[in-house]
């Protein structure tokens, strides 16, 4: 049985049809990327997976049980970090840990938080507040906060979208490294096809909304660890990337043509 199973998930806001029937099945331990244009409804899809939004129709099953609200087994890394500005790095991470592991003694919870602060290499900055950190460091805190909950699934919504290209590359490598350690199930939403292919076991394109659906799923059968430099010349990498890009561009063209038609 798949860990996460979506069938015919539809969602609209007012008269805007955002998701037009999403089918998706994710196995335990899989790293799945979903790529699409901005505004195609990716965040809506992730919010539904997180349980922050309810679909209008269709089903979302986690281990066969319908998802109705957020749960501890699903951690979320938000697009804009969403750190609480009045808390230090340590406090931001401890917020969820103290709640989730309230039966642990304080020492153990503290050590647990420290472990994740160290994992994202922020030990020297653990007593700083978010406004004192760079964008990349803030996103590390957000990743640590999510991982420290020890979730079954990590849901990431364009986690590196707001970062510059170099910081982005560094963090991509770090995410891959961290993922290699315990191979949690990950759903990564991104608008960067290269990023999606680089990190994922499977990449799925999302057609531009309104009425977004998922395109064919492509297995990224490139052995890990993947070397960013070598990858640029890897024919399989190019093939997958170009396939996804062409699919997205073609759908985008059709979408625009249909819009132009309807305006006329």
């Amino acid at each position, binding site marked *: 049985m798949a860990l996460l199973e979506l069938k015919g998930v539809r969602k609209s806001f007012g008269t805007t049809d955002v998701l037009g029937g999403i089918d998706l099945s994710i196995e335990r331990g899989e790293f799945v990327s979903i790529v699409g244009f901005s505004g195609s409804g990716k965040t809506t899809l992730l919010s539904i997976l997180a349980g922050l939004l309810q679909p209008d129709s269709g089903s979302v099953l986690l281990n066969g049980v319908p998802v109705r609200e957020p749960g501890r087994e699903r951690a979320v890394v938000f697009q804009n970090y*969403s750190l609480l*500005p009045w808390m230090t790095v340590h406090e931001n991470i401890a*917020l969820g840990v103290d*709640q989730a592991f309230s039966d642990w003694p304080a020492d153990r919870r503290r050590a647990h938080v420290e472990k994740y602060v160290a994992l994202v290499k922020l030990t020297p900055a653990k007593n700083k507040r978010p406004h004192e950190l760079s964008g990349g460091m803030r996103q590390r805190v957000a990743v640590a906060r999510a991982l420290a909950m020890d979730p079954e699934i990590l849901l990431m919504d364009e986690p590196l979208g707001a970062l510059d290209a170099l910081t982005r590359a560094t963090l991509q490598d770090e995410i891959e490294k961290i993922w290699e350690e315990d191979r949690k199930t990950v759903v990564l939403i991104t608008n960067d096809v290269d990023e999606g292919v680089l990190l994922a076991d499977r990449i799925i394109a999302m057609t531009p909304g309104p009425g977004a659906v998922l395109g064919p799923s492509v297995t990224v059968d490139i052995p890990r660890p993947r070397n960013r430099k070598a990858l640029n010349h890897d024919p399989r990498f190019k093939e997958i990337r170009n396939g996804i890009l062409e699919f997205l561009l073609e759908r985008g063209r059709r979408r625009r043509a249909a819009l132009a038609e309807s305006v006329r």
Partner: protein
Amino acid sequence: MDRIRKRFRWDVLLLPLVGIGVVFALWALTSATLSKNLPSPVKTWDASRPYILSPFEKRGELDQGILRFTWYSLVLVAKGYALAILIGTPLGFWLGLSKLFTKAFDPIIQILRPVSPLAWLPLGLVLFEKSHPAAVFTIAICAMWPTVLNTALGVRAIPQDYLNVARVLKLSRMKTLFKVLLPATLPYMFTGFRLSLGIAWLVIVAVEMLTGTPGVGGFLWQEYNSLIYEHIILCIGTIGVVGFILDRMMSLAEARFKVA
């Protein structure tokens, strides 16, 4: 460096002094020409000297140093203000969190808000039959509205992101309130607290006048009745200065919370 310093002094020290000087000159002119009843600045100073130079002296129930009167007023304001905040903050939170509650109670709040302290005080006297609790009641009910409305505004302005974080981290209601909602609302709350304090201080004078309670306002009214007009001006000056200091203090506290 030297030049910058000179310029700095000119702006923040000299210009306000010029402003004060102009007002004093107008005052002196008015008392000398238009209104003979208005005491001149010099006469005011002469008559006020014992009250200012020994500010804590108590010569009689209604004849005390000006800071002693100020202290009485401040204590009364503190009681009413504390009550205003204790009632106003939770009320504001409730309004901010619940649309239903807002729809039900916002209209009546908007109707009660502009009611003058002069109108509330008799009701307080009817309710409590004593002037002291009536005064506290009046200050509280007049001063709480900015706290209520600003707290509600602050709660409504909490970014959806923070609420989403609280939800995905599965924070308990108490944790969500104290770790997320309250800190996120604090800057707005403090704006409300500052405005409420300003109103509480405005109300005190009216309340003391009507109830005859010893304090700056009570003293002012009593001296009007005794035809010692110099002391009216002394009281006005004191009320203004104390109000200004209170506002500055609250602004400093407010600025501390604006960092986040």
